[in-house]
């Protein structure tokens, strides 16, 4: 059996195990909640992971698919983990877990019609690409956090110095953007 077929056949089991491995990166009390509550809105984290994983597995399992096709689903997961307590490597680690999980399922399956080892190697290579993609997206998310911070500071002229007025007023008064940046510098 080729790996694509194997993944199709065992899709639900693989997805459940993958989801659980991600849930297990959170404290024990949280794992229970993440796995049990299936509501999209009262368990946004769990439902985000649950909805994104099938799309990613489809891309991984289809050898002809470009890994980039998983970008949107990867972003959904990484966007959540990029602002949580994880180190960068831990934030993207769940995409690595799928390697071991698929191997485990392949090994556990009866050996009547084994998946060729070469296909597992090719799968590993695709997971590696997925990890690179996840890391790029992680960095994109972190850059967004900083941009959002910066934009917010620039919109808060009252923070910078007493007597400074709002930017459009200063523009109207003839002050240039450069001048504004000078008076808007950190205290």
């Amino acid at each position: 059996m080729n790996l694509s077929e194997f993944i199709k056949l065992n899709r639900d089991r693989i997805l459940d195990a993958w989801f659980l491995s991600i849930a297990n990166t959170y404290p024990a009390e949280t794992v229970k909640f993440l796995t049990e509550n299936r509501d999209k809105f009262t368990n946004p984290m769990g439902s985000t992971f649950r909805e994104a994983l099938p799309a990613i597995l489809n891309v991984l399992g289809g050898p002809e698919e470009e890994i980039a096709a998983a970008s949107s689903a990867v972003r959904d997961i990484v966007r959540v983990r990029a602002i949580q307590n994880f180190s960068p490597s831990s934030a993207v680690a769940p995409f690595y877990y799928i390697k071991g999980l698929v191997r485990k399922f392949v090994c556990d399956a009866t050996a009547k019609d084994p998946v060729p080892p070469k296909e597992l190697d090719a799968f590993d290579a695709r997971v590696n690409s997925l990890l690179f993609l996840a890391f790029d997206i992680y960095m994109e998310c972190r850059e967004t956090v900083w941009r959002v911070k910066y934009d917010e500071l620039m919109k808060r002229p009252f923070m910078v110095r007493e007597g400074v007025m709002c930017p459009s007023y200063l523009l109207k008064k003839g002050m240039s953007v450069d001048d504004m940046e000078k008076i808007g510098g950190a205290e």
Partner: protein
Amino acid sequence: MAKEPTPKEMQRIDYNPPAPGWMDTPVNIKPGMYCYPAKPEKIMDVDMPNPHKWSVTDEDWHLPADWKETFLEGMRDRLNKHRSFKIFMDICVRCGACADKCHFFLGSGDPKNMPVVRAELLRSVYRGEFTKAGQILGRLAGGRKLTPEVIKELWYYFFQCTECRRCSLFCPYGIDTAEVTIIGRELLNLLGLNINWIQEPVSNCYRIGNHLGLQPHTYKGNIEFLLDDIETYVGIRINPTFNRKGAEILFATPSGDVFAEPGIYTLMGYLMLFEHIGLDYTWSTYASETGNFGFFTSLEMAKRLNYKIYAEAKRLGVKWILGGECGHMWRVIHQYMDTFNGPADFLEEPVSPITGTKFENAKSTKMVHITEFTADLIKHGKLKLDKSRNDHLKVTFHDSCNPARAMGLLEEPRYVIKNVCNHFYEMPENTIREQTFCCGSGSGLNASENMELRLRGGFPRANAVRYVHEKHGVNVLANVCAIDRAALPALMDYWVPGVAVAGISELVANALIMEGEGPRTQNLRGEDIPGREEAGDV
């Protein structure tokens, strides 16, 4: 070269983290999750205790010598003074009904963000230091002693609660965890451990009149600048009055509306609405803040800041007060004001001079919410509206925690929006009205340095916005709170790009047909209204 692990070996990797109990999990203070400490001089401005320099990341927070006695004495005092606090410390059975209701828990997965555990941080000190069982049995009875490490933990997590009270909605005992946070923060304030994002606005408000520290001429000057903008975009000149004695109504609103984007557009909306109906009202450069960050330091400070609104209403001799779109201000007015500074018997029971409607719900506080007032005007057909001007907007409404849960303002905002916009879509039922998810930045946590915290806390709300954004193409998140207007744009930018944030009064004003107006090809933000750029709308 390292030996490649066999598939069997790879199976043995255990991804489960060890699971110590919460008391054994040390607090891991992380940048992005906290706000900077209060500056000593800002604490001194309002005579609050123990101003001192300290840094969150330092080992030593330079607590005063008698820190333990101060904290425990303060706790004893409050246990005696607030029966609610004593009950909340005693009766929780840890049923867990609140555990998964907090937006910070849902966004972070940190169990100490479960309301039950957050309260337990203080409750364990209560048991360990105040109850016989806890004093004798210690951890067996769920008690622990107060240590500097515990102080750090309390500080970290009480400033990860926005006092939104969503959890209290689900507690079978009616425990209000927000009140535990309020007392917890009061106790920390006794040690000089506040955050500057709260303390500086408190000082500004107390000394100058508003959180931003806008002096009277600046406050007036900026409103005049917004009047210029109205003249540009609408084609009419409005001339409101300031500090006018004898006006019928005093209008008071958060100072964020005067300076911060997109609050300024909401303020332009107020100005146009009052002009439209010919309201006899005045602005005040002294009662120039209705938000009350004092509420996030101590109830005593909240009382001091609340008082100036009523003192100004008395000085000007108005009949009643109309309040702008704000969040916690309305909790303070609706649930605390009467106890703080009431009764406001020098004011009259509010009656709309335009419709004659008596606002019986404001009988005691004499303060009416602008959205109630506007809804009443629409109901009586007093506004000329062209809602098609908002046709390019697909609007959803975020119930701000305090107006929704603390004063029951649920229908009026929806009624107003539906009357000024043709496209309105509700977010899912379990994320709105009483069950609304907080913006994640309330209770003085809308600084920028704690952006990760805000983004985590705002995730459940953003998740629901994303749903209507994808399903219906929603592009405007309307609300009635100045902190929402300040905080939600960042949240949308990260989680749901393409959704703008607007106060309801801005939407109203864009639809208002003003007497003598120009072609109205632009909205109050100076943006072209689609389909009206060239033809003009006469």
